[in-house]
């Protein structure tokens, strides 16, 4: 009997903390930051080649561009749930403005999707195609970070 009570209490506590972990949005924040890092890592490859710091390699460029296009396919509303701005919690630079004008925020993401797809078409065709495609990606990043990310770096 005593064992059953203990087990029930432990199970209850575990279930409670699991529910907490689900509701505090930390999984969503981690996923957001993870996808941004995947973007940055692959931009580093393409930007390095565009600048001539890395030798152009069509296959490596295509792999990087495919990765960007892959991130562009992630369904964003799953990650940007309400209550996860930097006014709600620590450890994020997401501004409340994201949820105040969510339609505009999603338009900014769509611009990244377009730019990533353009890069996917361009990356394998030669070094000279990288510069303009990087420009398009940079514009998409800037447009969103200007309004929706707390700038402190």
């Amino acid at each position: 009997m005593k064992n059953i009570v203990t087990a029930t209490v432990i199970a209850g506590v575990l279930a409670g903390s699991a529910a907490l972990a689900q509701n505090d949005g930390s999984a969503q924040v981690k996923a957001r930051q993870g996808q941004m890092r995947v973007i940055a890592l692959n931009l580093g490859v393409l930007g390095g080649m565009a600048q001539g710091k890395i030798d152009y390699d069509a296959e490596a460029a295509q792999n990087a561009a495919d990765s960007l296009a892959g991130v562009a396919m992630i369904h964003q509303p799953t990650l940007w749930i309400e209550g996860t701005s930097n006014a709600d919690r620590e450890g994020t630079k997401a501004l409340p403005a994201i949820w105040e004008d969510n339609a505009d925020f999603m338009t900014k993401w769509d611009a990244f999707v377009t730019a990533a797809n353009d890069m996917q078409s361009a990356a394998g065709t030669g070094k000279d195609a990288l510069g303009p495609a990087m420009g398009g990606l940079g514009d998409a990043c800037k447009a969103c970070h200007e309004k929706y990310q707390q700038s402190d770096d």
Partner: protein
Amino acid sequence: MIRRFIRLLLLAALVAAGFAFWMTRAVPLDEDALAGVEGDVENGQRVFTAAGCASCHAAPDTKGDDKLVLAGGQKFPSNFGTFIAPNISPDPTEGIGDWTAAEFASAVMQGVSPEGQHYYPAFPYGAYTKMKKQDLADLWAYMQTLPASDTASQPHDVGFPFNIRRALGGWKLLFMDDNWVLKNAPSEQVTRGRYLVEALAHCGECHTPRNMLGGMDTSRWLAGAPNPSGKGRIPGIAPGAFKWTEGEITYYLETGFTPDFDSVGGHMVAVVENMAELTEGDRQAIAAYLKSVPEQPSE
């Protein structure tokens, strides 16, 4: 004896008050300050871009050619209140279309309005005071070619005692300085970079910490500062904590990508968009200057 002493004391106080009143008056430039300096529209556009005029004076949330309509309305919160950028389009009623060249020069280089009032230093005349007169005349020529807007300027939201504009005369006496922060520039390139950073692009306005009265602490030039809007920090860009190479700085100013391929954000996006329109040589000059200023310890 005591009455005479009090009389003397009152007289001294009156003289001191009169002196303070005299010292804090708004001093415009002479009406012939720009006499004989012919404005060049093409160079004026470059000055306009480097000085970032549209980044603050365009209406909020404008992009592309709409940024050339300098209707004002952007808000700049600070410890002293919220400043709202005014209309500086060539509209003769709501903008500055009826100004003379000398009035424009007084506004930009001295922070003095045509009505003889001090402007708040949210308008970075403390940097523009180092501007070449030729560049100023060119800027005036260019700005008169821009579209007019009849949007009325909004009053700043600034409370007592900061709403006493006369006190800004004291602020100017204490903190306005037309000497270069970097006294000796080691090369032509750094000299050009110094002009861009210290005079036109007014980088120090955000990247240098300020004292309680809002004066820049030039001993900590470009060391980084709290964001005046409240949240976050403006990073240091002097050697020391800031380790980007000249090539990385130049690339960032062109593309907005950091060495880690994070993206520029916030108000710096508008700055990078301006810097991207300068020549590669100018961006390199800025980078060379940033590597020449005194090292600042990391915090």
